[in-house]
């Protein structure tokens, strides 16, 4: 199994997010190979949900586009299986795909309901089978993590904890039991590109560090290399979602080059931190 910690083993990590099924599942598969080739250290694969209450309009729309194609959770597991077992084909998929099977850690980001209704044990058994290292579930706070924890851990999958600007005295409790990495939410509100990140990330990360050694990556609102560098400076990595999903929305099935260059630039910026 790939481990989440591997993503943080060669310097600061750049972690892109993509909604599975947006522009079709075959396109998602190709884009993941592209982001791997461009230097992504770990990829968050979004399992689309009909009512993503923690997302801004960009990821909401991507989820809708994905669900409109009829993509299912099984289709997404099958895609991950292909990523893990075969390489891409530059001859027919273009020069931007990695020709090796994907070995970096992959995590799912989704809401509780799809996992719960699919069947928790079945879900995590399939995660183990296709080598998914962790899950990020924004509507499952610390108090409710018992819904997934034992099922996930039984299959070697880690449940990522989120810490928000409003967490304050909750940080200790969350950090002490955190596994994989800590997802530090940079700003109030929902996901989406922000011109400025005002939260005092430095002091939040310092507080987290008092209670755990696991890596901390910052997400929500990051889109520019400067922002990514600044956030990676204060933590162990940067997560970018909406900016990538926006590129996919703009370029449709021809986002390969734009994605490759964007991820490459962002990885370089994070590496400088």
């Amino acid at each position, binding site marked *: 199994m790939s481990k989440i910690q591997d993503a943080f083993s060669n310097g600061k990590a750049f972690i892109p997010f993509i909604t599975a099924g947006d522009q079709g599942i075959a396109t998602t598969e190709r884009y993941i190979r592209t982001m791997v080739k461009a230097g992504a250290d770990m990829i968050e694969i979004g399992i689309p949900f009909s*009512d993503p*209450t923690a997302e801004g309009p960009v990821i*909401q729309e991507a989820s809708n586009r994905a669900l409109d194609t009829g993509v299912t959770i099984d289709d997404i597991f099958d895609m991950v299986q292909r990523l893990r077992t075969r390489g891409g084909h530059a001859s027919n998929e273009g020069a931007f795909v990695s020709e090796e099977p994907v070995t970096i850690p992959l995590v799912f980001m989704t809401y509780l309901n799809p996992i719960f209704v699919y069947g928790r044990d079945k879900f995590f058994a399939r995660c183990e089978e296709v080598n998914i290292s962790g899950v990020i579930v*924004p*509507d499952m*706070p610390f108090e409710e993590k018992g819904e997934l924890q034992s099922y996930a851990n039984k299959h070697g999958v880690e449940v990522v904890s989120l810490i928000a600007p*409003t*967490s304050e005295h909750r940080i200790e409790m969350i950090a002490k039991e955190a596994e994989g990495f800590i997802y530090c939410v940079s700003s*109030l509100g*929902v996901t989406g590109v922000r011109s400025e990140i005002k939260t005092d990330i430095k002091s939040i990360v310092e507080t987290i560090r008092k209670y755990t050694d696991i890596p901390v990556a910052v997400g929500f609102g990051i889109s520019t290399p400067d922002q990514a560098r600044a956030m990676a400076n204060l933590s162990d990595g940067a997560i970018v979602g909406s900016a990538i999903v926006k590129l996919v929305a703009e370029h449709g099935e021809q986002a390969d080059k734009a994605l490759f260059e964007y991820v490459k630039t962002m990885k370089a910026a994070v590496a400088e931190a």
Partner: protein
Amino acid sequence: MSEQRHGYFGEFGGQFMPETLMNAVIELEEAYNRYKDDPEFIRELEDLHHTYTGRPSLLYFAERMTNDLGGAKIYLKREDLNHTGSHKLNNVLGQMLLAKRMGKTRVIAETGAGQHGVATATVAALMGMDCEVFMGAEDCERQALNVYRMQLLGATVHAVTSGTSTLKDAVSEAMREWTNRMDDTHYVLGSVMGAHPFPMIVRDFQSIISREAREQILVAEGKLPAAVLACVGGGSNAMGMFYHFIPDEEVQLIGCEAAGRGIDTEEHAATIAKGSVGIFHGMKSYFCQNEDGQIAPVYSISAGLDYPGIGPEHAYLHDSGRAQYVPITDDEAVDAFEYLSRLEGIIPAIESAHAIAHARKIAPTMSKDDSIIICLSGRGDKDVAAMAKYRGVDIHE
């Protein structure tokens, strides 16, 4: 009675909120626990109920309906006579008194039919607070009068165009807005749903319905009713109508869900009849959804019942067998809307008409010595134009 795990009713409920909002819901619970038994808080709320809402609401004996059906005596709990025209004010007054004590200066709310939005905008005007209401774009169209009413009261109304543009999306959007700004803002949730402590708080504030009704029926009949009925979307008027009768095991509790065009079609909002257990909008409960856990688009002629979930305490009352839930179609509800209007001179909200419809089915089968109480949760003025349209009558406003 039913709270076991903290914030749970049996296996239902919980606190499935983004980390960003956890301290906000914890702060709300602490404030509620601090003030709910505070004599000054209680006095202020009761005073408003009396002088502003017009409580206690009447328990009206519907004699012509009783005679027409020829069975159990029919009583209507007249929540439609409350100021703003529905039961929603009971909860809003309570939550906003609490919000004020918590130092909040701004409130946000979701609304379906507009009744909860109107109640929130009303109390915001009364208490001098800023108010923003989220309403599905489709519902804004169905209930245009209520949109203008909220604006008249000084609220800003946001037409929500995400998802299916109905109540579920209004709830999602209000939650998103709350994650953006919680320091000065309280989210006045309108039903017995969402994350703990909302289902408990809303139920407590609505339980005044059954507290009064139980006393009133004992005076009128000298005994408890055989059944109490209420319509169920999220389930706030039903929870309020049921609550003080829960320990009275001889009283049947019946919730009437919106079956839309029929539960054998895909156009319904009958969560208990057709849903399955899931976790959404902060709570574990029953939801209309597919096998991948995607929330289903639901449908009802009634914007207030057009919601794919149900409050967790209802899910618990259903599973434990204490309450039963029955589906009522659009056609049955519209017939009942007209029936009550003509027979009693009372125009019910189309939501409440779902409960009237079920009473028409069961009352004739019951003894004349028995009584049933129907919660008339709201008045139907808001629905008149839509009902005319349903009957093919063109009204020029």
